[in-house]
């Protein structure tokens, strides 16, 4: 847990430094009696850096007292990894195959590999949910979702 704390604090610190540098590049002072556009991000970045340093110091100060592991059991860890990795996988899938085809593949992988459902429920869900989303969003609400580079879903639609 404390390593995670350190890690996140350092990450936020790095972000703060990036913000400060970017803010300086657009000008962080005062011009003609009013703050420049970089003024507020600059000082927010400085504040973020100082607070992160404080958190780092706090974590190191309490190093001995807080020795719990980040994941309480390996089951939990693998659950998180599975959810996070499949959700990440869905992103390039959406880019290449379009939202509906990608969600079908994503649902297939998730319900089969993680959910360990039987094949018939897996297939039912993987086809049913994208179709349902299509009807609700594209037909009913007229919100167009990305079709991807290869537009598999569009191909299926024209074929039907």
């Amino acid at each position, binding site marked *: 847990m404390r390593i*995670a704390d350190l890690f996140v604090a350092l990450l936020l610190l790095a972000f703060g430094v990036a913000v400060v540098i970017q803010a300086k590049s657009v000008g962080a002072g005062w011009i003609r009696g*009013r703050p420049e556009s970089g003024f507020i991000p600059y000082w927010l*970045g400085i504040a973020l850096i100082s607070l992160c340093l404080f958190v780092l110091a706090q974590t190191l100060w309490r190093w001995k007292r807080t020795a719990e592991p980040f994941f309480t059991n390996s089951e939990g*860890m693998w659950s998180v990894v599975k959810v996070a990795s499949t959700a990440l996988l869905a992103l390039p899938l959406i880019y290449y195959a379009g939202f509906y085809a990608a969600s079908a593949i994503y649902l297939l992988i998730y319900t089969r590999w993680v*959910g360990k*459902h039987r094949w018939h429920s897996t297939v039912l869900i993987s086809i049913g949910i994208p179709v349902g989303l299509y009807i609700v969003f594209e037909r009913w609400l007229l919100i167009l*979702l990305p079709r991807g580079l290869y537009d598999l879903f569009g191909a299926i639609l024209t074929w039907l």
Partner: protein
Amino acid sequence: MADLLFGFQVALQLSNLLACGLGVTLGTIIGVIPALGPTQGAALLIPVIFTLPAHTGLIFLSGVYMGAIYGGSVTAILFNIPGTPMAVASAFDGYPMTLKGRASAALAASAVAAFVAGTICTVLFTLFARPLAEFALTWGPPEFFAVFLVAYGAIVGLGGKSLTKSMISVILGLIFTTVGFDSITGRPRLTFGLVEFMAGIGFLVVVVGAFGIGELLRAAEESLYTKGVVTAWVRFRDLMEALREMAGMWVSFVRSTLVGFWVGVLPGTGATPASFMAYGIAKRFSKHPERFGTGEMEGLVAPQSAASAGEVGAMLPLVTLGIPGSPTAAVVLGALMIWGLHPGPLLMIDNPEVVWGFIASMYIAAVVSAILNIFCIPVWTTILRIPFTVQVPLITLLCYIGGYTENNTLFTIGLVYAFGIVGYLFKRLDYPLAPMVIAVVLGEQTEEAFRQSLIMSRGSPAIFFETTIAKAMLVLAAIFFLWPVFTALMNFIRKRSSPKPAPAAK
């Protein structure tokens, strides 16, 4: 009063009634599902409703969160799995009641508490709304900036978590709002060379990512699952019994409702802290505090009424001042901005049908919610039959859709995922997320108020101390920010002055 009648005229139109009913139904379902609460539920539904006119969409949202407040308590009572954060305290005595075989009475009491508290608070809301808005019309940018500081101070100082981490959360949210085009000079900043960042980071992306996907990751880690389905009907007999028992505790009930309302009105704190506070206060003032936690109905009614009161109260500063009283209200604020409305005292004048229709719809939503809740419990418990492993990808996809509708770019979907990881890490490492959400929603206006004030005063910071209101608000903000320091100091002094406790005899 004439305002309220006008509001009812708006709210009772058929399309708006349907929107309300649909909202309550969806809200209850959202409340029942453990990984979704009213905050992320409302955020997920925004892409669905922004095609509707603003007053209808707002009425829909009021139904959603009225429904969600009750829906969360259903699973809390029946399975000890709170469906929403504000239902956690309802599980303390609600679940033991189920174990004692009093599930039906518990559900009835919860519905009645939510309904009565919601109605009382809507009345209070109606009384305070116009005077507060008219008062706020006299304010200028310096006063608004001071009030925004009060909002940040309240959520940081009264949140109860580590002051440093809360402040980091707020500052991070403010930094996110500065990404994109600067509204005053028109130049891009903090885009890190990426064209995609020029449009800025919308609040919907942050909420749906951090609260939606982040919560999913956290729930996955704790592997939530519902063991078996308890079919519970609310029998008429139990409803009457619950009403009789509640009549006996009306003092505690009114107290919880008022506590909940004012905690809700405070910017940043909403139904969740309200429910815990009400539970603690009810236990402290009860004649039988030892019975709390064993299935005592007062222990269920207090947090449930406070939660409903809190969310209604959170809407008061929202529609009058433009300051959300809770993270859920912040999402509603974001929705209003998407519709092109600017919440604040002017909203009542420019768009009275939106504000008063919204207020009137809260009464209606409370009634609809009570009716649905009493009769539809088995429906809600059936929702829980959907395995968690199917809920996860479905909710993820809905979050991605929500993020995409922000500005129709795939980049935004990636941002949603990134915020999901951030949200998960924050939740696990005790960085509170509510301050970040409030900051993302209010950040742009805060900066605008700050810079407009300085432009008005030609660079002199003294303008923030000119009017009494501004000075009073700045003092209040300082008190809130320093509150944790103050309480830590008091604890320290108390420990030093009290004698060391005798070691326990073995």
